[in-house]
C-alpha cells in the first residue's frame, strides 16, 4: 500500500502515528470508559495542525492535500475512533463549507481559530424528525433586519458538547421547499444557543455528541454562508467531502482490529498450537486483511480524484459505503478471534466493534449511500 503514497504522504503517516501511539493509545480505553473528551490531547493536536489539515497556511492551517487528510484521519482512528470522528467532522463539515462558500471576511473571522483547534466546529443538519431526509428539516431562520431569528432542534451533533461554532441548517423561506433551506454559523454563548445533554451512545463515547437547540436565537445576517436557499447544496457538498473522512475513519478502526487479531492469533494457544495455525482463524485474518486493503484503496482513490479536481462524489459514496460495512465485519471477526476475551472490555477489540458500528449510520446511512450510488449508475447507462 505504501508504494501508492508519495514520500510526503509517508512522512504524514509516520509523524501522526508516532504522536497517536505515544499520546493517545495509552488513554484510548480509559477515555472511552469514562466518556471523557481529552482536552489535553486536543490542545496538542491543535498545535500539530490536525484541526486545519486542508485549511490554507495563511489562515492558520497546514495547507495539505486530501491524501494527507485521509492518512491523518486513518491514523488517529486506528488508536481512537472518537478522536478520529472529532477531527474529521471539524475539518470536513465544519471548516470546509466556510472555506468553500464563505466570504473572505467570514474565513478570516472563523478559520484561524478553528484551524489551530482553539475553537471546535460542528455541523447541525440532523433533527429528531429529519435524518436521511435532510430536506425535511423543521428549523427556521427568519430574517429580521440585520439578523436571523433562529429556532432549531439539532440532534446527534458530533462535537456538540464542546463546539464553539455550529453550522445550522434552517428554513429561511418556509414556502420554498428544498430551495428554502440556508446555512448560518451559530456561535456558542449567543443568547438562546443551548447545548443539550451528551448522548449515552454505544460507541464513540469520548466524543461529546449532543443536541444543540436554538430558541429565538439572534444570529447576525453576516453569519449566513453562501446565499439564502443554498443550504442544502452546501450541506450535500460538505457531506461528499465528509464521507471520505468517515471512510478513512472506518479503515483506521478496522486496521487496528486486524493488527490486534493477528497478534492475538500468534499468542493464544489452543489444542497445543497458536490459534493462528487453525484454518478457520487464518480464513478470517485473510478476509480481514483483504477487505481492509480494498477499502483503503477506495478511500485513496476518492482522495486522489478530489486532489486532481475531478468529480469524486460517486467514489466517495462508494468508499464510505464499502469501508463502513467492511469495518463492521472486520471488527466483528476481531471479536470472534478473541473469543470471550474479545467480548470483554479488557481487550480493545470490543471498543473497535462498538465504534465501527456507527460508521454505517452517520454522514449518510448505508441505505442512503446505495440510493446515491445507484442513481449515479443508472444515469451513467441511460
Amino acid at each position, binding site marked *: 500500500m*505504501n508504494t501508492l503514497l508519495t514520500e510526503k504522504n509517508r512522512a504524514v503517516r509516520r509523524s501522526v502515528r508516532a504522536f497517536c501511539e505515544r499520546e493517545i493509545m495509552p488513554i484510548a480505553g480509559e477515555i472511552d470508559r469514562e466518556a471523557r473528551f481529552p482536552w489535553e490531547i486536543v490542545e496538542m493536536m491543535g498545535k*500539530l495542525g490536525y484541526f486545519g489539515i486542508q485549511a490554507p497556511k495563511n489562515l492558520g492551517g497546514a495547507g495539505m492535500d486530501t491524501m494527507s487528510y485521509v492518512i491523518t484521519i486513518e491514523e488517529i482512528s486506528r488508536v481512537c475512533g472518537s478522536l478520529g470522528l472529532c477531527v474529521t467532522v471539524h475539518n470536513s463539515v465544519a471548516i470546509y463549507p466556510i472555506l468553500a462558500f464563505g466570504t473572505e471576511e467570514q474565513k478570516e473571522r472563523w478559520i484561524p481559530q478553528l484551524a489551530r483547534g482553539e475553537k471546535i466546529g460542528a455541523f447541525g443538519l440532523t433533527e429528531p424528525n429529519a435524518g436521511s431526509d435532510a430536506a425535511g428539516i423543521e428549523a427556521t431562520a427568519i430574517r429580521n433586519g440585520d439578523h436571523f431569528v433562529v429556532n432549531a432542534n439539532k440532534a446527534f451533533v458530533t462535537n456538540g458538547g464542546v463546539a464553539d461554532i455550529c453550522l445550522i441548517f434552517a428554513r429561511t423561506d418556509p414556502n420554498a421547499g428544498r430551495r428554502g433551506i440556508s446555512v448560518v454559523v451559530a456561535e456558542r454563548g449567543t443568547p438562546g444557543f443551548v447545548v443539550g445533554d451528551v448522548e449515552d451512545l454505544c460507541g464513540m463515547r469520548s466524543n461529546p455528541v449532543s443536541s444543540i437547540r436554538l430558541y429565538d436565537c439572534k444570529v447576525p445576517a453576516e453569519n449566513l454562508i453562501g446565499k439564502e436557499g443554498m443550504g442544502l447544496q452546501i450541506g450535500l457538498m460538505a457531506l461528499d467531502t465528509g464521507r471520505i473522512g468517515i471512510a478513512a475513519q472506518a479503515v483506521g478502526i478496522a486496521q487496528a482490529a486486524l493488527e490486534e487479531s493477528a497478534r492475538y492469533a500468534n499468542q493464544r494457544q489452543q489444542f497445543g498450537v497458536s490459534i493462528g495455525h487453525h484454518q478457520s482463524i487464518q480464513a478470517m485474518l485473510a478476509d480481514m486483511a483483504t477487505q481492509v486493503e480494498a477499502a483503503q484503496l477506495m478511500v485513496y482513490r476518492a482522495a486522489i480524484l478530489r486532489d486532481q479536481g475531478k468529480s469524486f462524489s460517486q467514489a466517495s459514496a462508494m468508499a464510505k459505503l464499502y469501508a463502513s460495512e467492511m469495518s463492521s465485519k472486520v471488527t466483528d471477526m476481531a471479536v470472534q478471534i478473541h473469543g470471550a476475551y474479545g467480548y470483554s472490555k479488557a481487550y480493545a477489540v470490543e471498543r473497535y466493534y462498538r465504534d465501527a458500528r456507527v460508521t454505517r449510520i452517520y454522514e449518510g446511512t448505508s441505505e442512503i449511500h446505495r440510493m446515491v450510488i445507484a442513481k449515479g449508475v443508472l444515469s451513467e447507462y441511460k
Partner: protein
Amino acid sequence: MGLHIIVCIKSVVTKAPENGIVRSADTAELNPFDRPALEIAISMVEEQGGTVTVLSMGPPSCAFVLNESMAMGADRGTLLSDARLADSDTLATSTALAAAIKKLVPFDLVFFGTRTHDSDTGQVGPQTAVLLGTPLVTGVTSCEIKDNLLRVDRKIDGFREEYELSLPAALTIHPSAVKPRYIPLGGIEEAFNTKEINVLTLDDLEINVETVGNAGSPTRVISMTKVTRERSCEFLTGTTDEQAEELVARIKKSGLID
C-alpha cells in the same frame, strides 16, 4: 546573522537485516537519540535567530530523515552520499562528516546524539569534533549562549558538571536533555514544498578518498545476526510460604541479593 547550528543525524535500521541492509523509510527511522539534539538546536535558533542545518551521510534512500528533520523545524538539509563511502566505520564516517562540515562553514555549533539506536558506538560525535579541532562536551543536558560563550551542563556518574566553551564547539546531547517535539503537519508541507536537500559527493569535499569507505576503515563488521534471548518459565510448587522461601533462595543464589 544569528547562530548556525549543524546537527548530524543518522537513519538507523529498525528491521533486522536479512540480505544486507537497505535503508529506506520502511526499514529505517531517524535515530531516536538524534531527536533531542535537533530539538535543542531548533529551539535555540527559534529564540536567538539563525539557521539549523541537518547533515546526514548515507545512500539517497536516507534522505527522508533530512525531510523529517526539516519538517520538525530545521532550515536546510545536506546529504553526503557517495558509493565510495560504503562500509565506512566510525572513523571513516567521522572523517567524511568533518570534511562535509568544513563545507558548511561558518558554523557556531555542531550537535550529535550521544549514540545511535542501531550500532551504539557513541564514537562519531567525539571523533568528528577532534577532526574539526573544536572543543567538545559529551552527554550534555542543557546549554545556553551568553556573551559569545557557551555554558553547558552535563550529568555523569551522579555528578553535575558545568563547562564554559568558546565557539565554535561540538556537543553530544544526552537523550534525557529534552523531550523532542512532535512533527506538525504544516512543517511536513513546508519541508517538502519549500526546503531543499543539498547533495554532496566526495568530489565536493577536500578529502583523500583512501581515508573513507572500506579503505579508510580500520574496523570491519564481519557478520551480523539477530540475537534471540532464551527465556524460560518455571512454576514453583508447595504452600505459599514454601514458594516464597524457594523464590528468595533462588534470587540469593543468582547473586541479585545477599
